[in-house]
């Protein structure tokens, strides 16, 4: 599967057109996403916001390639690769090379050290343990956990665990980072610290970051906010110096 590098800022990382997704059959069928159109740009931090059950996580899963769409849906392209036309094997390989994941519950393996946890994406790619752990140590240094490399996740605070998760998402230098409620399990102070660090290490002109969040305290880190409601994108707001976040989005949850 040839990858198309997105060199220029604001090149499209993901392009979704007329995406529909339903769960269930017959009378219990529930349409969760309705004709979604969305562009996620390289160099931006894009946030998907909206009330619970509005379809944010489902949309995130589709962009991440972990969930399919309804038959007859439009297109889901990530770095010009049509996810809907990929075989399961191609999709798996694409995820392993192009996408970094940060989960709400961190999902660090408790019996592995921080270094081992961070090296997982490289091991999945088939890299040697030696190479993977060397690179993992470099990234852990970048996120300020150089002195915690041999610790296990249970020996770390919530904020430190999320920093390990950030390191894991970055270690294989993916071009799209998918974050699911990255600050939901953290207190306000740690949430802010983690986002500041994340912005520092993850923002890059070649890379897109897509965050699903309820946490309006971190909206200030966004370049773009897409608000969802009832399975639709109801508003997309580009945040710039001259176009700050409007009040109704500032308090959106």
């Amino acid at each position, binding site marked *: 599967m040839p990858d198309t590098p997105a060199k220029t800022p604001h090149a499209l990382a993901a392009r979704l057109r007329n995406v529909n997704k339903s769960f269930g059959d017959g009378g219990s069928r529930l349409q969760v996403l309705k004709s979604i159109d969305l562009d996620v740009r390289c160099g931006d931090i894009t946030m998907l916001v909206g009330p619970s059950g509005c379809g944010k996580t489902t949309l995130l899963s589709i962009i991440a390639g972990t969930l399919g769409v309804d038959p007859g849906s439009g297109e889901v392209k990530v770095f010009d690769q049509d996810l809907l036309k990929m075989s399961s*094997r191609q999709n798996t390989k694409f995820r392993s090379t192009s996408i970094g*994941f940060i989960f709400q519950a961190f*999902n660090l393996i408790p*019996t*592995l050290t921080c270094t081992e946890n961070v090296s997982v994406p490289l091991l*999945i790619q088939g890299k040697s343990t030696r190479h993977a752990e060397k690179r993992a140590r470099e990234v852990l240094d970048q996120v300020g956990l150089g002195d915690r490399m041999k610790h296990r996740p249970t020996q770390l605070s919530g904020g430190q665990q999320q920093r390990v998760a950030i390191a894991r998402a970055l270690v294989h230098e993916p071009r799209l980072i998918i974050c*699911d409620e990255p600050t939901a399990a953290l207190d306000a102070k740690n949430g802010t610290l983690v986002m500041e660090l994340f912005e520092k290490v993850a923002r890059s002109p070649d890379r897109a970051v897509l965050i699903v969040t309820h946490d309006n305290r971190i909206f200030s880190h966004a370049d773009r906010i897409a608000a969802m409601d009832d399975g639709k994108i109801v508003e997309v707001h580009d945040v710039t110096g001259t176009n700050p976040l409007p009040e109704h989005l500032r308090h959106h949850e």
Partner: protein
Amino acid sequence: MLRLALKMLFGDTAKFLMLVAGIVFATFLMAQQSAVFCGLMSWTTATLKNVPAPLWVVEAKVEQVNETNPLLDTDVARVRSVDSVAWAAPIYSNILRARLANGSFKIIQMIGIDATTFAGAPVKIKEGNIHDLRLPHAVIIDDLAVKRLAEVRGKEVKLGDTFEINDQEARVVGIADTVQSFTGGPYVWTTYERALQYAPPQRKMLSAVIAAPREGISESQCAQDIAKETGLKAYLNRGFAFGDDQDFNTSTVWWYVRNTGIPFSFGITVAIGFIVGIAISSQTFYSFVLEHMKHLGALKAMGASTWTLCLMLLTQAFTVGFIGYGIGLFCTAMFAFPALKNEQPPFYMPELVPPIVFGVILFICGLSALLGIWRVARLEPAMVFRG
């Protein structure tokens, strides 16, 4: 990834130990009980090993060596008269009671052999001389009798010591190294004529005729000739083998398998080992997989293929299997050493038992892994976003 799989396994100490314990238990129960069963079956043919002869001629309906229908004394001559027979000798074999000097009685397995040729004499005599068996009241006892027939517990019978059989004196002139009998009574050899004096009289006293074929004639052919010309049953004595219906060992073992509850009893225990092994291992491993489902989901979302995850589960399951099997076999060996030294309880592990038990353990591990694989194969990576 496989290294990480092992770290995940070893890191969950409680579940790992539980899994290993299940496999150890299953291995020990299956290997030890199979070996005790085989040991017990080996004891059933002890007389054939202790009274070595290429051919055993018995009454036509006899199926096993410990329960013989007596023959007429003239049957020895009839067997000798068969052209392909090189020699034939009488054997008396029966369970009698020995009376010790302190007045107590002990069961013995009396063997009477031809005094001229000593055909059927013990293979290995540790003390004494076989020729002394021709002396008045002379008997040769086995190493079990050395302890069992002692007047005082802890003391041992020595050459020259005496006891009584059916009110007649028996003097120990030799001690032999033997295989223990199925009945538990020690072997006592004497001459055929003296054995008839010790035993309560019956119309027929000859238990069996042992024989050997002439040079150049196969044992099998000779047995067929004896059966054809005498109407008696001639068995070969070449050791147990599946499907060898000419062999007395095989016939004896199958008689016990068919007519006693021994295989059922041991079979139940082995089956329990198998079932408990499956139950503990499968349940624990499945719960281990369920506990790690969110991590496996995260790995799948990050691009680990289902095959990789399955390989991880198989590695974990079979690692537990190898470790548990090793420890289980070690425990069996720890049981075996004293059993073999004291010759109690019976213990004989044929070469086939360890690989068969290993195969069963691999099956248990494979089945345990399969339950996890079934879950992982159905695992949607998107579930990891659902909290």
